[in-house]
């Protein structure tokens, strides 16, 4: 905490005052400040950061699958990387999810860039963003049934890549 720079420290204090126990932990490593939020208030925290503290750019939305991870308490983490363009402050907001309830509120209403980022997280991990305007697969084919970046999905898939019609020379 001590190396969190001044303005960011004020923001974190204000957040801690307002959300209390909702903020599970605040940590920092070098110039990287991380904020862990419980999932039921994640939208409120992000909305506050967007509206009141000027984090007007959503750099990335990504996820982590902690299956087989030593000492992990939760299955999934969803991570939001925020940037305040005016002051250059960066903040990483993280929340945890468990099966079977893999639903988070979409932040598309706060940042338009959440559109494709949330679709990618849905495509790769199967985490659903409620309120997203067009939540469908972005990288994999639409009829793909698995979520390939989950750790229980084999690296080479279940054979989907071999499941195509074969065209021989005589029939083409």
């Amino acid at each position, binding site marked *: 905490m001590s190396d969190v720079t001044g303005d960011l420290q004020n923001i974190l204090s204000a957040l801690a005052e307002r959300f209390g126990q909702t903020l599970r932990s605040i940590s920092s490593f070098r110039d990287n400040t991380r904020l862990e939020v419980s999932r039921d208030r994640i939208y409120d925290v992000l909305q506050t950061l967007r509206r009141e503290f000027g984090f007007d750019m959503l750099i990335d939305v990504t996820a982590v699958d902690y299956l087989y991870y030593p000492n992990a308490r939760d299955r999934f983490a969803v991570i939001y990387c925020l940037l305040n363009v005016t002051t250059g402050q960066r903040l990483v907001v993280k929340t945890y999810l468990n099966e079977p309830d893999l639903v988070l509120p979409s932040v598309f209403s706060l940042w338009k860039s959440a559109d494709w980022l949330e679709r990618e997280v849905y495509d790769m991990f199967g985490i659903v963003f409620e309120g997203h305007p067009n*939540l469908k697969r972005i990288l*994999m084919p*639409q009829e793909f049934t698995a979520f390939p970046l989950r750790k229980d999905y084999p690296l080479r*898939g279940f*054979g989907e890549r071999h499941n*195509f019609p*074969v065209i021989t020379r*005589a029939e083409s």
Partner: protein
Amino acid sequence: MALGIPENVFLSRLDALANWVRKNSLWPMPFATACCGIELMATGASRHDIARFGAEVMRFSPRQCDLMIVAGRVVMKMLPVLQRIWLQMPEPKWCISMGACACSGGVFDTYAVVQGVDRFIPVDVYVPGCPPRPEQLTASVIALQERIERTGTLTGREFAQRITSDGPPVVQPLPDKAIVAPGDALTSTRLWQVDLPPLPGGVKTAFPELEEDQDS
């Protein structure tokens, strides 16, 4: 002349004549999806100059081509497109699989990358390399020219015997876990025509009119 044939007249077979013409005017369809495409461009450019072998006319319409050069990795989403382009090319046609990825998937041994295009379309010449040098691609064009000259026929009947796949044996996907109908080479755009699995959580999208289009 003993046979009474005047000067500057040659006798040949029609097959040989057609082969001579075809091998010296291969029109490539550059299916370049990755870094092999850069080497393919270099092969077409002035230093390596594939025009020396009559194959400089890169056509981006499959209907004007007779040589498909698959340069780069092909993923599951791209394979139906590749197959459709191959079917659109008029006979006689040939295929060069250029580079490790097109031949075997290369280092991309993952869930989304097709492990060699020869599993799903016929391939005549394989070019190893990652990516191959332009000299290698030139050599493959020369090898294909020799093959056309040796085996080609006027009517293309040499293709009719190849009724089985030339590629590696078919791998069966796991029946209960793999997707059922991934590719349709005839339509290739199949976004809204399949029964999509329901979204977990019963999420509604904001475009109900799109959903209605899918249903109809």
